[in-house]
């Protein structure tokens, strides 16, 4: 455990998004526009993980994610945990839960959907299917897609 921690530099204050499935960390950075900031960001890719085998990790200094942002993470990284750090101490640990609705970060797979126009943001709601799978329904074109199709 100690060894894992040292593989990515510890931060004094800010958020650590841990247990991101490997290969997803980079995606989260761009989708959530974490890089559109002057804040210092550290990213670890393919780190060893007891839970996932391999994991990614993102640390953002002096930034606390909104509840909404945290829950939207759950779409891509259902097992992620978000740790809040202050003075190098863990002061909060949050487990994202799937939100009802997800705005902006996804792109509608329907190529004729008006949400592709550049003046608007996409918006999807989650629909639970009988087989317990989750579908995403575009709020504009009203088409329903399996989660994997929208996320890929």
């Amino acid at each position, binding site marked *: 455990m100690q060894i894992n921690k040292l593989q990515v530099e510890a931060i004094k204050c800010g958020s650590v998004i841990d247990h991101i499935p490997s290969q997803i960390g980079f995606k989260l950075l761009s989708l959530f526009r974490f890089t559109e900031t002057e804040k210092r960001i550290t990213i670890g890719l393919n780190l060893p993980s007891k839970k996932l085998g391999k994991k990614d990790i993102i640390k953002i200094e002096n930034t606390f994610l909104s509840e909404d942002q945290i829950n939207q993470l759950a779409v891509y990284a259902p097992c992620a945990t978000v740790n809040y750090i202050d003075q190098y101490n863990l002061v909060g640990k949050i487990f994202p839960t799937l939100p009802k609705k997800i705005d902006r970060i996804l792109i509608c797979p329907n190529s004729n959907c*008006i949400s592709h*126009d550049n003046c608007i943001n996409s918006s999807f709601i989650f629909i639970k299917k009988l087989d317990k799978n989750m579908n995403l329904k575009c709020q504009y074109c*009203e088409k329903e897609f399996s989660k994997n199709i929208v996320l890929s």
Partner: protein
Amino acid sequence: MRNSLYKKNIISINDLKRDELELVLKKSAILKKKPEPNLLKNKIIASCFFEASTRTRLSFETAIYRLGASIIGFSDGNNISLSKKGESLADTISVISSYVDAIIIRHPQEGSARLATEFSNSIPIFNAGDGSNQHPTQTLLDLFTIKETQYRLNNLNIAMVGDLKYGRTVHSLTQALAKYKKNKFFFISPDALTMPNYINDMLLEKKISWTRCQNIEEIISEIDILYMTRVQKERLESTEYANAKSKFILNTKTLKNARSNLKILHPLPRIDEIDYAVDYTPYAWYFKQAANGIYARQAILSLVLVEKHFK
């Protein structure tokens, strides 16, 4: 009866509750019996057709004139200065919304009507068809016609024939009829054009019975409504199209064992899926259905624009 449709946007049949459907049907029936030519006097309505659809446009415009309102607008997005100058849909809507009391929009892209509501400054938007997505007034006129001919919207056996994959009218009608109890659906289509899963799943979730059938004859003696749609050539391979054409064409022979109350509906235009001889049978109801479009559109326009009805 409270008018919960007042000032509402009419974008998708899924947005309307059962009570609201009833409200529209009731108002349609009243307007069919007794025209109210001054109901929308002094209202101005924009008819914005970003793609041509003559039938729908004329139907809406007739409905507007019958209610005493005035129209501004355009009938084809290619010929208007707005799109030539590359002005976005959002800007067009926000400008026009400052001129009028309501906007009717037809647009080739799915979701366009919903988008329009975000830029209309609370002026109600009526969706007259957004790509392959929704065309709620078509569904309202379908419901009105079914209720008028069968005296109920529950406990019906409904067969839908043709292109069930891309046919938005059959999707919306199924969604609307699924709000009523004990309806049974029969789906008849080429293999490549079956009902999409989200519709089948919705029926399954609501425990509504549906069956896929091979041909119309199989079920003709069981059904109350036969909803025919066109199979577009470009959706199928040529051999498959020839096969589908012969299989899903309705002629008088197919109707031999029909129930006496059977009504045949079709959103029109028809190509050759209904033999002309069928027009002369008592089952043919598609032209009356199209005529009902005026009343259904009058009803929805007046309910959205005038708060008090049903004295």
